[in-house]
């Protein structure tokens, strides 16, 4: 029996719920460790970033206004969809990271579980980060966490799926929208994740995923005045970090990077506290 000829996938960007190629027409070639060709993912340009930010901004208030229950269910739905694609993710990860299928499957399962963990936070943030404040006077005063707005996320090179999920899930679950830049070296699971997201009822524009070079795009993330926060966990070079922070100061972006175990602080880092006063009287 002759082996069936594979139908290859074209890996594209994920912007505003659609899968466009880069407006620049650029791609870059991925080869596996043995040198065989894998794919030509898109090399996103600053204009692709701009389009993604526009989509993210347009989607933000609607997403933030969805109930926390609704957001939680949609995030959980994404985990459900991921679970059905373990094979596909594992094949891509093992191919690019040079690890065994078994190890890759473990990473995917961990990533899916991580996603489930985040999904459950959507309706509990007010309980851990909100407060009623006992002020001295006839006022009711309370503090609530609110989403920041549009957040850029530069995902780490390593742990291409898990790292990306840590970049996306904690940001969007609270009502932010995100423009994420996937691992340059291993972008395929990112696009597969985009396909999962596209079939999970997440409104278009809430999550946008780009593939490309961080050295090229990071400065544009940093300087974009309509990006409110930036996760630079995936940026390692100290000089680039400093450059991003200098540039991000122009609109006082909330710029963070994270290490260690996932924690609600990672979610809260891209939230604002709003405090409301109202008199008490008859």
């Amino acid at each position, binding site marked *: 029996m002759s082996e069936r000829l594979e139908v290859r996938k074209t890996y594209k960007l994920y912007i505003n719920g659609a899968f466009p190629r880069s407006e620049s027409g650029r791609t870059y070639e991925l080869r596996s460790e043995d040198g065989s060709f894998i794919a030509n993912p898109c090399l996103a340009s600053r204009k692709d970033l701009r389009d993604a930010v526009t989509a993210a901004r347009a989607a933000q208030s609607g997403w933030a206004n969805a109930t926390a229950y609704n957001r939680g269910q949609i995030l959980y739905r994404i985990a459900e969809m991921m679970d059905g694609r373990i094979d596909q993710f594992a094949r891509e990860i093992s191919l690019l990271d040079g690890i065994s299928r078994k190890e890759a499957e473990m990473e995917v399962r961990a990533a899916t579980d991580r996603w489930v963990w985040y999904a459950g936070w959507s309706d509990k943030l007010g309980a*851990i*980060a909100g*407060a009623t*404040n*006992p*002020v*001295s*006077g006839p*006022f009711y*005063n309370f*503090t609530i966490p609110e989403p920041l707005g549009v957040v850029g996320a530069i995902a780490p090179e390593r742990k291409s799926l898990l790292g990306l999920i840590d970049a996306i899930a904690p940001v969007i679950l609270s009502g932010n929208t995100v423009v994420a830049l996937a691992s340059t070296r291993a972008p395929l699971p990112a696009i597969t994740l985009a396909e999962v997201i596209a079939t999970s009822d997440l409104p278009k524009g809430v999550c946008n995923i780009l593939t490309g070079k961080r050295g090229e795009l990071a400065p544009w993330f940093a300087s974009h005045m309509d990006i*409110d926060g930036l996760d*630079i966990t995936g940026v390692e070079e*100290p000089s680039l*970090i*400093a*450059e991003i*922070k*200098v540039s*991000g*100061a*122009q*609109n*006082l972006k*909330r*710029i*963070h*990077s*994270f*290490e*260690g*175990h*996932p*924690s609600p*602080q*990672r979610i809260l*880092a891209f939230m*604002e*506290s*709003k*405090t*409301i*006063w*109202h*008199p008490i009287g008859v």
Partner: protein
Amino acid sequence: MRTFEYAPALESRSIVTIGSEYGHFINGSFTKGRNHFPTLDPSTEEILSQIALGSVDEVDAAVDSARVAYESIWSKMSGRDRGKYLYRIARIMQERAREFAVLESLDNGKPIRESRDVDVPLAAAHFFYHAGWADKLDYAGLGDSPHPHGVAGQIIPWNFPLLMLSWKIAPALAAGNTVVLKPAETTSLTALLFAQVCQQAELPAGVVNIVTGNGQTGAALVNHPGIDKIAFTGSTEVGKAIARAIAPTSIKATLELGGKAANIVFDDAPIDECVEGIVNGIFFNQGHVCCAGSRLLLQENIADEVLAKLKVRMAKIRVGNPLDKNTDLGAINSQEQLNKIHELSNAGDAEGAERWSPECELPGRGYWFRPTIFTGVTQAHRIAQEEIFGPVLSVFTFRTPDEAIEKANNTPYGLSAGIWSEKGSKILWASQKLKAGVIWANTFNKFDPASPFGGYKESGWGREGGRHGLMAYLRGSEVGVENE
């Protein structure tokens, strides 16, 4: 007297003793200081004293002293004992409240009614509130045994000199940090009096250091390699410069910056209290308030009524001697600030907005500006966009709630906002839509140590007050968040 007028009711200056010259407060004692500059009473232009201009060396000495105090004493002390020191400070501030109030009004120009009834009691309350946190840091929200940062460099503005000092020093000390604080150039005196309070409280030397000076002194502090944490309240411009300066480092910063708050009046507002809220929103502290309600958004169908009442009310504002207990609006803090207010107001005239001020006599000397409103302002006007930081209100109208929110949010700032309506659901709706860190509904310009304060967008980073504010002075021991 043929009608009932208020005779002058001056608070006595005799309660304060102002030295002819001051040094810095480093390692528990006052230094001599090398170069000095004058500090004025802005209501008379009288020179009150000579303030030391902090140099790089002096900042260095202060940071060293804070470092030693941190390593050897403060970080090792139990939370309970740190708390006791803060309680002592709170009590001494209460005991010497009148002295602080008079000195603050002299140096800043704010009415004694405000320094006596707002600034000083709130400052003491901040120490009292944070004292209680010192031995309860495990409940700050960062898990068990969170750590202080180390040495905090703190730079404060001239609009609430003592109150901003307390917003900075109290949480820093409660969390276990030591501090080097730089007061604003024009208002150092109450910080130096606070240094005496630290001495009376027998606070260990070096835990609090105060270096006076100008912007260069502040820059020396920000750029000092021995600083672990920056807290700054001031202009957005300087805040951004600080953010850039610390970009190559891992220093954490809390920034409380500018604002251009919208005060939105819906047609179902409680009108009389709303007029008071508008007045308090923009004329409290001469409008030298980062969260001032400087943009008044009136629903069109009640705009005339509210404006008419506002003008009647503004005519009753008593402008004059800050030490007169009946003064409502005191002196502008400096010639520089007065020039800025004039410049922006003149821009309002030039851009076609209509200026109105009540008749009122201004003193011959000192820095003064009448309470002023501009009507016919549009979003494109400079006075609609730029922070004036003076007693100048820009008035807009809107037709629908959506339009109000859109206009209110149409600014790079996001510190505070006001909502006036007797309809609960509308208040909650608007609160949700407004991009601002503090929302005052049917009130304005209220502050409390238990209430987090701070802004969205270009109004800054982080919060001050409450558990949220305390967290800024701590790092979690188990939490994987790295606040770059």
